[in-house]
């Protein structure tokens, strides 16, 4: 199996064609870099347009790549199979939506280094696409690192904002730790099977069942468990979810929106490839672990969301809960379940980015102001915005006929027919809690009067996340000026309550943000219309994976 002669491989034209979508995104990255040089300060928002065009062109190229025969490329390191293309489509859609929200948000939050922001956002998307298309443990890891490194920087991009710095730092340290687990696990798997290619591992394990029980079984099992830890961290499954709320809350909201969706797509597709496909024969061993993690994640994720009064943070916890539903599909491990996983990811992308999108429009200049109180009476102040938010929240809660309902339906249906009935029941019960915390925002928007008059400013809710930093900063959390002008304004506000008026001010929505919201609402509501072809494509892609 292992060649003795020095390894050489010459890529063919076909290889390059199969990574055409990735190449286009890369080209857009370069174009963004160049455009950044040319555009004057203040017009950097157009960089988003470059990225959006790149995402659209890349998305169109998916159709072409889909028509190519065969999938494997670059000596089997990468595949352009249906699953990869589906995931790439979802990632590109998320990228496009996040880019549309960005210009006005960055301007309002006064985030400097706009050029880097756009470049890094696209690079992380590239990493996600690579990870989702990886057909080899090595490529999985390269893709993962590519997306993670870009995200570390993006989280910490608002340099003057302590919370963002904290988020970036935490994410970096914990994620590196988890990556180490993952890499170690991969090397042990290589040790046990002599292969890093995902199909090769599967083939080896299928052929050597007997050998496993003797010599190198433990090697495989330890490798599996370490990889599982790494993946569970990346998809923020309990008990490896602790970083999620802090990082998601601290990062700029556009970044949160994108990473909450994109990393899930990439990591879950890779998880499915590695565990459901490569380690298919070991299903009996890893299935109980994923089962337990899925149950924990669904229950704890939903329970923790219940007490959140900050919408951004609530959405962060809800992404943990959603990871739980997706793990149900992994635990079921049937072609139908993998198809439902893909469908869920697509639905989750539009509704979650949409919900974050509304949240970032409600957010104030100082990066705060996303509590429930800030949503009070939004239905009166901004009917369109509130209606959009309501659509997203109903979808997240799984109310028909939205995309979120269908997604949950497919996942739980796959679990029911895949002999995971208890898991489906637990999932459905856990998602009942979701009704409470999602619809509470709807209630605030439509049934509560806008918070009138005086509202104490600069008294952020007690966030444990900050306690840590607070300790480091000698407990000077409240006093630590995030930026001189904001400090000034909040001081002024304490004297004269001016800032408080903000809650009753109409929120201005830029054209690009409005476009993104319209697209997200339309997709959330209309997915039911093209659910059959989408699901059929996912099913075909998933069953191809199993052969």
């Amino acid at each position, binding site marked *: 199996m292992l060649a003795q002669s020095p390894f050489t491989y010459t890529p063919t034209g076909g290889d390059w064609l199969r990574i055409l979508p990735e190449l286009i995104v890369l080209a857009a990255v370069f174009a963004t870099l160049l455009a950044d040089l040319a555009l004057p300060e203040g017009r950097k928002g157009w960089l988003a347009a470059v990225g959006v065009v790149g995402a659209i062109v890349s998305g169109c190229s998916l159709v072409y790549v889909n028509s190519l025969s065969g999938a494997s490329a670059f000596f089997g390191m990468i595949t352009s199979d249906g699953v990869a293309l589906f995931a790439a489509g979802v990632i590109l859609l998320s990228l496009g939506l996040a880019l549309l929200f960005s210009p006005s948000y960055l301007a309002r939050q006064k985030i400097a280094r706009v050029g880097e922001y756009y470049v890094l956002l696209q690079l992380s998307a590239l990493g996600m696409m690579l990870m989702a298309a990886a057909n080899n443990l090595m490529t999985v890891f390269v893709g993962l690192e590519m997306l993670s490194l870009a995200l570390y920087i993006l989280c910490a991009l608002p340099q003057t904002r302590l919370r963002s710095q904290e988020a970036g*730092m*935490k994410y970096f*340290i*914990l994620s590196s*730790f*988890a990556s180490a*687990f993952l890499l170690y696990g991969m090397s042990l798997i290589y040790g046990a099977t002599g292969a890093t290619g995902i199909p090769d591992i599967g083939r080896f394990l299928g052929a050597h069942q007997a050998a496993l029980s003797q010599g190198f*079984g*433990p090697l*495989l*099992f*330890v490798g*599996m*468990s*370490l990889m*599982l*830890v790494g993946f*569970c*961290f990346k998809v923020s499954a309990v*008990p*490896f979810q*602790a*970083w999620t*709320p*802090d990082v998601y809350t601290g990062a700029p909201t556009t970044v949160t929106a994108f990473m909450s969706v994109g990393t899930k797509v990439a990591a879950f597709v890779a998880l499915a490839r590695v565990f459901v496909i490569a380690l298919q024969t070991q299903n009996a*061993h890893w299935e*109980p*672990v994923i089962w337990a993690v899925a149950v924990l994640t669904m229950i*704890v994720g939903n*329970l*923790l*969301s*219940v*007490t959140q009064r900050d919408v951004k943070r609530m959405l962060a916890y809800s992404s943990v809960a959603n990871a739980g539903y997706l793990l149900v599909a992994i635990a079921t491990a049937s072609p139908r379940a993998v198809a439902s996983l893909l469908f869920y990811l697509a639905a989750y992308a539009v509704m979650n980015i949409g919900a974050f999108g509304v949240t970032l429009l409600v957010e104030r200049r100082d990066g705060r102001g996303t509590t429930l109180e800030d949503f009070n009476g939004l239905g009166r102040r901004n009917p369109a915005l509130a209606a959009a938010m309501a659509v997203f929240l109903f979808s997240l809660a799984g109310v028909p006929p939205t995309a979120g309902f269908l997604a949950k339906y497919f996942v739980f249906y796959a679990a029911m027919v895949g002999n995971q009935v208890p898991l489906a029941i637990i999932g459905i019960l856990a998602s009942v*809690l979701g009704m409470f915390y999602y619809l509470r925002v709807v209630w605030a928007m439509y049934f509560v009067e806008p918070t009138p008059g005086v509202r104490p400013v600069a008294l952020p809710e007690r*966030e*444990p*996340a*900050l*306690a*840590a*930093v607070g*300790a480091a900063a000698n407990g000077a959390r409240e006093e630590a000026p995030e930026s001189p002008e904001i400090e000034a304004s909040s001081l002024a506000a304490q004297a004269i309550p001016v800032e408080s008026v903000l809650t009753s001010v109409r929120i201005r929505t830029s054209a690009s943000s409005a476009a993104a919201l319209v697209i997200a609402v339309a997709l959330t509501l209309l997915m039911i219309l093209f659910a*059959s072809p989408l699901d059929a494509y996912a099913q075909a892609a998933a069953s191809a994976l199993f052969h």
Partner: protein
Amino acid sequence: MLNLTPFILLAPLVGFVALGLFGRALPRAVIAVIGCGVVLIGFALAVADLISMLGVAPAQRVSDVTLWTWITAGTFHVPFGLLSDPLSAVMLLVVTGVGFLIHVYSIGYMEGDPGFWRFFAFLNFFVFAMTLLVAADNFLFLLVGWAGVGLASFLLIGFWYTRASAAAAARKAFVVNVIGDFGLLIAIFLLFGAYHGALDYRTVLGIGSAQAVAPTSVAPGGVLLAIALTLFVAAAAKSAQLPLHVWLPDAMEGPTPVSALIHAATMVTAGVYLVARAHSLFTAAPTSLVVVAVVAGATAFFAATIACVQNDIKRILAYSTMSQLGYMFMGEAAGGFSSGIFHLVTHAFFKALLFMCAGAVIHALGGEQDIRKMGGLRERLAGTFWLFVVSGLALAAIFPFAGFWSKDAILGAILQRATTGGAGWYALYAVGLLTAGLTGFYIFRLIFVTFFGAYRGAPVAAAHGGGHAAGGRAGDPLAGLHLPGLALMAPMWVLGALSLVGGALDLPGSQLLSDFLAPAAPSAIELTSALFWVSLAAGLICALVGIAIAWSRYGQGQAPAGDEARVGALVVFLRRRWFVDDLYEGAIVRPILALSRGLRFGVEDDTLEAGSRGLGDAVGSLSAGLRGLQTGFLRNYTLTLFLGAVVILVYFIAVSQ
């Protein structure tokens, strides 16, 4: 063969969406043009469909287009398909044609209403739902249209929602209609079981299928009977048959065009359509037709008796509608399905016209609906009067008006049926004749009291615009009469003409309609038989007797106030509508309310509320507890990561041994 049905549906839907979204901002003229225009387009398309249908051989007059597959679940498919066959073609023509005239009438009638745009949006929605109902090619989309017209009816009865009585009437109609929807749903479940998931007419009813499967070979008789009866529950609720009729008289709270369109001409005939559509199921379970006959006969007689003592002009017509619907079902029960549809068509003409005339009178008198406060309007509202007479003669089935031919086709069908089976059908025929007499009586009572004699009401306030006010000498109580404008009168003339000559559709000898409908709805009677002529004569005599009695008592325009003193008990009995509403109140409404109160205060408060609150509190405290783990300290997070890894590792090592 052309099948433009999708576009017939689309036109009113576009109108509804356009008016619903932007109507508020549009000028009235534009609203009127859109609202009427889309229905006219639908009518034109329906005519085109009909012409192309007439161009092909009768056996091929079925066209089924599938627009898309709505649901696919395992082997269960529900396509969104539309059927064009003679029956649906006739229904579509009635719905869009009469519907269009009523739309035009509404322009005049609703002239000053602030909800003008809303009214037209709802009317267009109704036309859409009704066309869906009659054009669907499977039972599930029938149900969609069925519920849709129920919703439209609710919205339009409660159109003046600030009136408590209108809101209550709307609610009542909705509740009763939902009972019918429920019946239809049960029927669909039974069909689903019997036909292994097939709900399309092609499979179930054999429409457009070369080798139709006999229902008796599919399901046992009991199931077929249950299907037919539950379908009839649906039909009875929609078509106001006993005992689900209670909503129709109250529905007169809606604006008069609504009464004309929904509660006389089209929606209430949905039940008649359903029975004709599913006639193969009904004939396969003969007992069900007996049930239909009994209910229909009882309703026809019951409603006609009540109509004789009502004093509200619209309520008289409402009861008359019930009674006529009873006729249609009687005809169908006797196997004359095409006769039922024929009467449906002519009834749509003359009953819509009656309501329009009543609307014109109400409009003229500034909202007065009590016939005791009318009288002597013959000369002032001459046009309306003559049209009222024409439509009244059609309703009373006097030669040669439309109703004469259609009603007597039904009576003939019953008589034909009676000659082949049982004495019960003779009894039904007798009820039919008796009701024919009552019909002549109550409708001419209405006409005489309203138009003859002297005016008895309060002086009519001058028209707000002044434009339509009739000139008159000072002191004339009718000086402020609002004369109906062109928008009101034009559709009335058209319907008047149709009421006069509508019978030509199916004259004995030519039988245009029965022949056309033959592939979709069989007829029972050879209309040239001697039997039929006998029946014609008998029906005519009964109606003339009824009119003669009405003339003798009200011919001079006497107010009907004196009645009660003379025949006391019977009239009170009829006035209270045979105490049916009171029975409902006592036997159903009150016990349910009492039970609900008991559950609300006894069970809900003490047991369930406490339980669910406790559960909520438990979740809350659990959540707060878990939140404590989220310390924010990096070292803690790392530790949990590490511990989690250890647990998983230990597990794997354990299983590997």
